[in-house]
């Protein structure tokens, strides 16, 4: 029978098929190839193991890092927040006790768990990857079935290396065409979420397909898969291809020699069969896509940057109307205001969505030779210590600090403000992260989700801006685009 990519990966991991058929079917027991662990969602799971006298079944398929709580300044000093310090110390103790490999703050491989896995070559096509973090969908960019799980499931994976799951439905997101300059992967996924809604993907695995997806780098594909959860889907995938293999080749945990050849042969079989059918198909035109930005308090409340803040009256559904009213009030926005007239206080470049080398390079290309708006503060937080080192080797840190931005150490940082990097009440932020929920970046903070180049252009002008709004600067990408 013809199968989709998701179905192939699923079927290859069924330890035990659930009894029964159709709606009455019990869940399948799926084997998990890689379990990523961090300090926030693991302490209660380790404690559960201890209380039940259970072992961690496969420490050699488990890896931990510290990311959510870690400070991005003064990382050589003890963590000032005592509860954060305790949580980090608890992870260290648990990893020691259960034999889990841990990359701690200060280690060259520490960083956001979804940046670390791919970077080490541990994320590979055809694998099942889980983590107690909803943005585990990121790893789907490699053609892995990767999903976020709750703490009870974390404990279940620790004890059994499996998960009980009911099969998902499948949804194809077809993105055809060519992105225009200044439009990026982030704009694709924000447009997808605006189109299908924050609940549109519930119960589905998304597969991103089409010429525009094939043309994307691995890091751009990770940005897209990362935000599948914002469309309600636990997992999003891209079929592996030469771009995937080129990215992986030579990474520390990538197979080598004959094993590499065997792996590639297998990975090539994972493509969705030509005659396979998806439960749902959604089309998006890349040619006409513009830079996208959110105006509200859920990631589905987004528009083109060149348009205006919508009015609650624009929404037919009563619940959507009420949600829009509430969002505009929280965001302090008036319907009809051009998005580009909205002034921000802070620009955050970082998070598991957009904190990799390409993101930093793209932003640096916009700001090189410019000065930031004096009323804006800009935080640049690399996704991992390794990314930070690579960026410094390219001199990107200098570009950011010359511009007036703060160059920080790696972690989740202001994406969710579990560390000191938070917005003040009422403060408005253009953020390359993934969630614009009320209070997400700090109590009372107001978030507009944007791409790295929009974040950079916004830091220059002080208002939400696309790179094409910038006056040419001698040394910038915007100048080169205009001059071409």
């Amino acid at each position: 029978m013809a199968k989709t990519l998701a179905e192939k990966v699923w079927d290859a991991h069924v330890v035990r098929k659930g009894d029964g058929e159709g709606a009455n079917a019990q869940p399948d027991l799926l084997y998990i190839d890689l379990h990523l662990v961090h300090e926030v969602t693991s302490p209660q799971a380790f404690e559960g193991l201890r209380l039940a006298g259970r072992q961690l079944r496969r420490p050699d398929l488990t890896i931990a890092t510290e990311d959510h709580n870690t400070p991005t300044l003064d990382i050589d000093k003890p963590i000032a927040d005592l509860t954060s310090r305790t949580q980090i110390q608890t992870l260290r103790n648990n990893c020691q006790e259960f034999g889990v490999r841990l990359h701690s703050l200060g280690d060259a491989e520490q960083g956001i768990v979804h940046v670390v896995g791919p970077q080490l070559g541990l994320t590979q096509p055809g694998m099942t990857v889980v983590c107690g973090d909803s943005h585990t969908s990121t790893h789907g960019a490699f053609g892995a079935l990767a999903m976020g799980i709750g703490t009870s499931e974390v404990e279940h994976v620790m004890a059994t290396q499996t998960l009980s799951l009911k099969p998902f439905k499948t949804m194809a997101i077809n993105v055809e065409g060519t992105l225009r300059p200044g439009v990026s992967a982030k704009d694709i996924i924000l447009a997808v979420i605006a189109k299908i809604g924050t609940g549109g993907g519930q119960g589905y695995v998304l597969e991103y397909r089409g010429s525009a997806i094939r043309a994307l780098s691995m890091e751009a594909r990770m940005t897209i898969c990362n935000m599948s959860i914002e469309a309600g889907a636990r997992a999003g995938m891209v079929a592996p291809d030469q771009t995937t293999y080129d990215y992986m080749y030579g990474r520390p945990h990538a197979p080598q020699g004959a094993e590499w050849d065997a792996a590639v042969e297998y990975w090539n079989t994972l493509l969705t069969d030509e005659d396979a059918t998806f439960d749902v198909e959604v089309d998006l035109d890349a040619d006409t896509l513009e830079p996208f930005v959110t105006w509200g308090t859920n990631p589905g409340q987004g528009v083109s940057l060149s348009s205006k803040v919508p009015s609650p009256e624009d929404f037919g559904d009563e619940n959507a109307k009420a949600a829009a009213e509430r969002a505009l009030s929280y965001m302090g926005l008036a319907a009809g205001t051009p998005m580009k007239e909205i002034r921000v206080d802070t620009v955050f470049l970082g998070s598991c969505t957009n904190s990799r080398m390409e993101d930093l390079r793209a932003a640096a290309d916009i700001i090189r030779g410019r000065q930031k708006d004096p009323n804006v503060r800009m935080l640049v937080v690399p996704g991992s210590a390794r990314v930070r080192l690579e960026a410094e080797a390219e001199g990107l840190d200098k570009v950011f600090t010359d511009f007036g931005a703060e160059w920080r150490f790696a972690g989740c940082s202001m994406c969710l403000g579990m560390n000191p990097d938070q917005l003040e009440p009422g403060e408005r932020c253009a953020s390359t992260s993934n969630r614009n929920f009320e209070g997400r970046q700090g109590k009372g903070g107001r978030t507009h989700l944007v791409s790295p180049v929009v974040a950079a252009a916004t830091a220059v002008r002080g208002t939400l801006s696309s790179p094409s709004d910038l006056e040419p600067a001698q040394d910038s990408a915007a100048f080169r685009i205009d001059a071409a």
Partner: protein
Amino acid sequence: MEKFTTHTGIGVPLRQSNVDTDQIIPAVYLKRITRTGFEDALFAAWRKDPAFILNQEPFSAGSVLVAGPDFGTGSSREHAVWALKDYGFKTVLSSRFADIFRGNSGKQGLLAAELAQDDIELIWKELENAPGTPVTVDLVSKTVQCGNLVAPFEIDDYTRWRLLEGLDDIGLTLKHEEDITAFEATRPVFKPLTLPAKLS
């Protein structure tokens, strides 16, 4: 896990869609390493507003949350379920739940019952017109009763069975340990191991 068969309690109408897990429990409360004691964290930001539904009587003593569509979107934090349970909620009614939240609820004995939005609207009206009206959620018959309304709800059979029996997931899976071991023996050698650690 505690068994769930039927529950009757004060219904709390939360007329809002997309109640995300950052609203149910803000990230600052996730630094704790315990599994209980999260009642103060539930809807922490909203509870500072005296007009919020849980700050009004008799709703503060509610145990059946009746919410808008797309409840529990966002992060995978199971703390959202712990906070609802620690506060005293036994069940949440909504026309649509986020997948991860729904899964987490089932693991912790919090019943996530999916009703038609029309029925949710009728329950909201009843609870607003007659605050304190008890709501009965019966997992055996898969129905909700509020005033004169009796409405069916959906829940997958496996989760229903586990809730009715109060079964521990890990214990169930470990009955199949031989299958797991057999599967592991077929794992291709090219698949990565995290140990021993290889570094760049």
